[in-house]
């Protein structure tokens, strides 16, 4: 029997018109190019200003989902966290957390992909396009991190 290929989604969110807030979106764009260059058809990308209900439907067809977001937290550069599904509404009715999306996906579509959130440290959030140099460096590190992570995931999938 032929083993099916895994389906992987990298989903960046944020507002690129708000300086470093666009880091997640830019990461998704660069991952799209990387997946194309590497001929990794299993890797798909998506992006939006923020996460919302319909994203529960969007992630329901994937085995692995990596959300990417700019972060105001006091981290050095970037951090990759395993996501635990949660129905806690952390933001507002207009935008929800990736953990909430994961929970909603499980409850509505009976599927919970393995999911992670990569936080990219940001510093400036004004009405300007383009990231700060520091966040640009953090983004480069975050990209390398998840590219290695995905390659490892694909290797593990083949072995399993």
């Amino acid at each position, binding site marked *: 029997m032929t083993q099916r290929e895994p389906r992987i989604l990298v989903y960046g969110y944020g*507002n*690129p*018109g*708000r300086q470093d*807030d666009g880091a997640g*979106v830019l990461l998704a764009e660069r991952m799209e190019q990387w997946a194309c260059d590497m001929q990794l058809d299993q890797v798909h990308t998506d*992006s*939006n*200003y*923020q996460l*919302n*209900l*319909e994203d*529960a*439907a*969007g992630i329901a067809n994937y085995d692995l989902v990596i959300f990417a977001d700019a972060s105001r937290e006091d981290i050095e550069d970037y951090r990759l966290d395993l996501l635990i599904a949660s*129905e*806690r*509404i*952390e*933001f*507002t*009715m*207009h*935008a929800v957390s990736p953990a*909430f999306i994961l*929970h*909603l996906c499980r*409850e*509505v579509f009976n599927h919970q992909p393995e999911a992670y959130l990569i936080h990219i440290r940001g510093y400036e*959030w*004004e*009405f300007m396009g383009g990231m700060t140099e520091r966040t640009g460096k953090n983004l480069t590190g975050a990209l390398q991190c998840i590219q290695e992570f995905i390659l490892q995931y694909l290797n593990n999938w083949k072995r399993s």
Partner: protein
Amino acid sequence: MGQKITIEPVTRVEGHGKVTIHLDNEGNIEQTRLHIVEFRGFERFVQGRPYWEMPVLVQRLCGICPVSHHLAAAKATDVLVGAGTGEGLTPTGEKMRRLMHYGQMFQSHSLHFFHLASPDLLFGIESDPLKRNVVQVALQHRDLAVQGVMMRKYGQEVIQATAGKKIHGTGAVPGGINKHLTEEEREYLLHGDDYMDIDKMISWSQDALEFFKAYHKKNKAIIDDFAEFPSSHLSLIRKDGALDLYHGVLRAVDHEGKKILHDVDYQEYFKYIDEEVRSWSYMKFPYLKEIGKNNGWYTVGPLARMNTAEFIDTPLAQKEFEFFKQYNGGKPSNKPMHSHWARLIEILHSAEKIKQLLLDPDLMEGELVTRGNKQFEGVGVVEAPRGTLFHHYKIEENDMISMANLIVSTTNNNQPMNEAVRQVATRVMTGRKEITEGMMNAVEVAIRTYDPCLSCATHALGQMPIEFELYNSDNKLIERKYKG
């Protein structure tokens, strides 16, 4: 000894808001205020930028209703390029924009109803806030939750097909639109896989209305009596009196239905509307000049639109509109919870409009853009999901913006939200000695009927833990509560 109760910020409302309630020595409500505490000066930011950037640039304001800002800015720039004031575009230009707008209305209203209103209605205002969300709806009413998610998704697909992309869409340009709808996009939205089917969306919209009406029948006190107060209502209206979410003239009626703003051209909105600044809030307070600051305030949004409109030009929504009007005795509804009802009628209307447009050949062929003589001042107005949205620009000879004024829907609703808070606070908090979850949420429910986007109004990014504080008359903190 008087007390001050602070609810800060308001959960499940975008941006950063704070409610303070002042009690007198006997525990009666002395004063209530909805404060908006963050402001970033978008109008100043766009000065010196070329006008043609505006339809894309204004999407930086807000990730919640970027399409509304995109279209309002595009309509203002239509005037600047001499393409007229909403009626001069090519059929393709206007219809593609309308399709985008109805997609936005459909997805935004669906989000509000399924994610926000339905948990409140299904589980009750007094229920545990942590259990009052769409996941709990999914556990108990799975079909309803699936419909909410897929209706959101459908609206987003319409936006993507017309605006070109989800982030910083570029579809609307000064004088028109930059793309046709492709045959593939049209077929997908008409009869796509995985629920992406317009007939399914119309049917689900009707189901949502039936759900609401059944709830209403059993819970008249909540829907009809909650936070009721007399208000004027303002919206765009088509010249023949039909509901029109994209273009028209400005009409306002008082709480009994008497016209107080007589179908005026919105290019001259500043002759009729002014904005008052109050020291305790960054959000301004718009009012009708002729009536004055004290009584000239008005409500905008779905309920206001039902109250100004004479009819709806799609058959299924018209039938629901007639029932709504009949229920209210032909008078305007001044019941904030009727906003949910009005929103559902607009969801159905938007779905019907989307179908009409998808079947219109003008979307797939024809001239995209029109131009005329350059103008130096332009106003664009649309009915955004939350209400009337004004964009007003002046430019210099070199095409750079010299003045920008935005009145967003939530700002238009500033005074009504304050009134609603006062109504609820008086009812549920008078004489109470402690802050309960139910009390806090009753205040929030009142605000949420307006679906406020404080992010737009204040241009904040906004994160939402909630804080309640209780002060005595000496301003000493005696109780604090958090949630969210």
